[in-house]
């Protein structure tokens, strides 16, 4: 075990924010590419997972604020943009796989499974070059235990709780000591990868909600087109009824689009630039929300809705390069032009 300084811990918690954030645009692309009314189970599953990832971002920001850090979503203080350009490796991972922006497809589901893969018994905690996200958080948990209680110096007014955050697989809560910090880590790890011997996530215990499969297994059942039922384990795989998946009822977005794909002055370039600007506005609002102005989260919901409309509009435009593919949102940072 390496021993971290408070500065190391804050650096890793910023990485946590970035890891959680990095998963969201790929999930959104898959979700928004699904034709309304088709693949309903898949759409519901992906939507639920995105909502929970947003909760994880919020809890990671609360953790970072609790230990005196300051979450970043935009380039500032001489640092580069903390959000990735797709395709990307997960931040500070072992670079085993890349995550791209893709429409709903078997390939996308395979990537999603990899993102949410459980640590597996005996995998050591790893703060850097981790193989699974669980290993990363185990390392964070050890450092927190090591540095507690002195590390919890953060300004409590920076914490974002359920007054401002809502909608994702449970409630955001304030973090101010080791107990609340560990509760947050438990939510992040267990919702994603499941508890060692169980494929179900802990919502029911923590939040009193309905029993729900952990993310990995939700994607696994879609990928295998078969439901998990009670009694199934990671070893048995899903043994329930079939799931109907229709990969044809999907907008065929070209993977990981960029604004530069389209010539300057073209209509698609303008639409992509506009969508990137909306995305960047959202990042600015989130940064403000997690650095002392939590009411910004309420305004950011409108930006999220606009991002969705603009992204779906792009996904409906066929490219004229003969590929049979459509345009799509690029999720690129662009310094918003003001306002």
């Amino acid at each position, binding site marked *: 075990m390496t021993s971290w300084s408070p500065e190391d811990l804050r650096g890793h918690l910023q990485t946590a924010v970035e890891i959680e954030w990095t998963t969201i645009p790929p999930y959104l692309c898959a979700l928004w590419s699904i034709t309304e009314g088709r693949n*309903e189970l898949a759409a*519901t599953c992906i*939507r*639920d997972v995105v*909502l929970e990832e947003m909760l994880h971002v919020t809890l990671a920001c609360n953790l970072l604020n609790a230990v005196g850090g300051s979450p970043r979503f935009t380039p500032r203080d001489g640092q580069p943009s903390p959000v990735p350009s797709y395709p990307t490796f997960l931040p500070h991972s072992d670079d085993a796989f890349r995550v791209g922006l893709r429409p709903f497809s078997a390939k996308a589901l395979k990537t999603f499974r990899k993102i949410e893969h459980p640590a597996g018994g005996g995998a050591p905690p790893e703060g850097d070059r981790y193989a699974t996200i669980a290993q990363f958080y185990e390392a964070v948990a050890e450092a927190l235990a090591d540095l507690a209680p002195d590390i919890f110096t953060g300004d409590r007014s920076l914490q974002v709780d*359920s*007054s*401002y955050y*809502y*909608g*994702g*697989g449970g*409630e955001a809560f304030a973090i101010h000591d080791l107990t609340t910090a560990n509760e947050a880590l438990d939510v992040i790890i267990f919702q994603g990868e499941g508890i060692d011997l169980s494929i179900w996530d802990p919502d029911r215990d923590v939040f009193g*909600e*309905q029993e729900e499969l952990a993310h990995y297994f939700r994607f696994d059942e879609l990928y295998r087109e078969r439901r998990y039922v009670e009694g199934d384990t990671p070893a048995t795989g899903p043994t329930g009824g079939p799931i109907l998946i229709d990969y044809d009822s999907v907008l065929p977005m070209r993977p990981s689009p960029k604004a530069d794909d389209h010539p300057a002055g073209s209509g698609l370039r303008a639409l992509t630039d506009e969508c990137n600007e909306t995305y960047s506005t959202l990042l600015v609002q989130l940064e403000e929300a997690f650095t002392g102005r939590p009411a910004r989260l309420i305004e950011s*919901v409108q930006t999220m*809705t606009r991002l969705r409309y603009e992204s779906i509009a792009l996904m409906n435009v066929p490219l004229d390069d003969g590929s049979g593919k459509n345009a799509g949102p690029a999720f690129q940072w662009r310094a918003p032009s003001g306002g």
Partner: protein
Amino acid sequence: MGQSAHRPVGRLSEVADYDIVIVGAGPVGAILARVLGSAAVGSEPLRILVLEAGPAVGRTWSDYQANVDHYLGSSIKVPNAPWVSSAYAPSPDVLDVRPLTPDSIPDDNGYFVQYGPLPFESDYVRAQGGTMLHWLATSLRMVPNDFEIRSRYGHGLDWPVSYDELQPYYERAEWELGVSANVEDQEYLGITFRDGYHFPMSRIPLSYLDEHVAGTVDGLTVTLDGEATELLVSSTPQARNSTPNPGYRPIGAHGAEHMGLRCEGNSSCIPICPVQAKYSPLKTWGLVSRHVEVRTQCVVSKVIYAGSAPDAPVAALEYYSYTDGLPPPATPERVTADIYVLAGNAIENPKLLLASEPTPNDNIGRHLMDHPYVLSWALMPENIGAYRGPSSTSGIEVLRDGAFRKDRAAFRMEVVNWGWDFITNSPFSDLESAVDKGLYGAELRAEIADRVPRQFRFGFLYEQLPDPGNRVFLNNGYVDALGIPRPCIAYDVDDYVRKGMVASQGLSESLFAALGATEYTRYSDSKPGYVTYDGWPFNFVGAGHLAGTHCMGTKRSNSAVDSFQRSWEHENLYLIGCGSMPTVSTSNPSLTMAALAFRSAEAILDDLGVR
């Protein structure tokens, strides 16, 4: 509580099928099922059956979405558009209403049989969840003087409960429905709150339009009937999800709990909230004990009494269980219980009693009230962001009480976010008239963008007094597909209301002038709800606030039920809902109805000796 002159009914016998049968799975049925379903005799839960005439429309998220699809696919977005009614349990629809003439009476177009002289224009929904599936979610308390109208203003009937007695039940109702409001906005005209009380959620933010109107109207003094009043635009308490206060967790969509945790401003509250951020009784149904049995598509046709004495207890209910698409059932079924609750609405409850022998209390069916709803509309000088947010998020409440109520109706004023929508079929009619002017392309878009966001209207809801001539009755010549008599309705709007309309019209004109708006209000004698007073014309529609037909009072001679909504004649029969309201005053009645239901649930538990 000492409320009961009746002996406790107790578990009368093991031979009854159920302890309690509730007729109607709307808002009242849901609250009763929630409270009574969690009670037990010893370790055994109460045996409760709920019979609902209509279908289940929202047992899962995708069931509910089918209603959204219906709404999206309907060409006229009336309140009942999303909710498919059954041929065997038809719902009245606002599209059924036609102008009445002496020659056209009775008009049996649709489910109601209209005897006039004016048409009864409100609708309702017969389905699990009831008419609160398409309500706006306005959750105002009544003002204390509303409970004492006879003593103070010399007409109507005093309530047998006071504001103070109802206060704790208002709190329960506000927490059950999930009302968003701030206490300091709601303390007017004598309305008080318990020290330290807070609503479950903070108020829904005022719309840009609200703030714009308040900027001009707040502090203006108007003099109506010699009384000077300083106007104030108040945030309206609404049962839709907002930022929660301590101790409350917003309830999301039924079957998709991540959805609907905050109002998203979809602006289709009436007829349907697509994310279920607005309260509907489906949310309460989601919390009802599994021991409560709900049978939908069961139309109760008769109350069977134990003998022919006018005060015989109820012995059984007769009902038809139907399946849509199949022939009607040939014979009714029967169910027995110790306590019977009619929780239909102010038309279905009396309809059922009037169809049963012996003839009920003479007050049953009489005093039908609604809020006649009049609109005035204008074009603002600038963009006020019309059509954003719920239909109405603020109102002018300070004119809801005053000495003038001796002479004319009080009213509340809605500040409306939805432009002219159903008045002129806007924005579609704006598009048509712009195209007719020869506009197209960018000019057409500019015209629409200029005009539509400037549309503004006030909505006025007037108190209607109880009039024995406004009533629900039956005529065996008019029956539904099951052979059950349809509601016949005699309805009029008296001078008390019309004088209120005149007062509001003058106020509306002066406020439009103060706002710099150009008034476009025009009332037409070809509309069904056309009335005049002193040469002033008005068009009214129904607000859907049916009340009064089994009014509560202090004695058998002036009312149909006691303050607990228990029938004066039949000791094991409750009639629960807006029908029990002796007067309707000016507040949208759902919150008061819910508060009264909580109070009655306690009385029922007392009857059964289980509290």
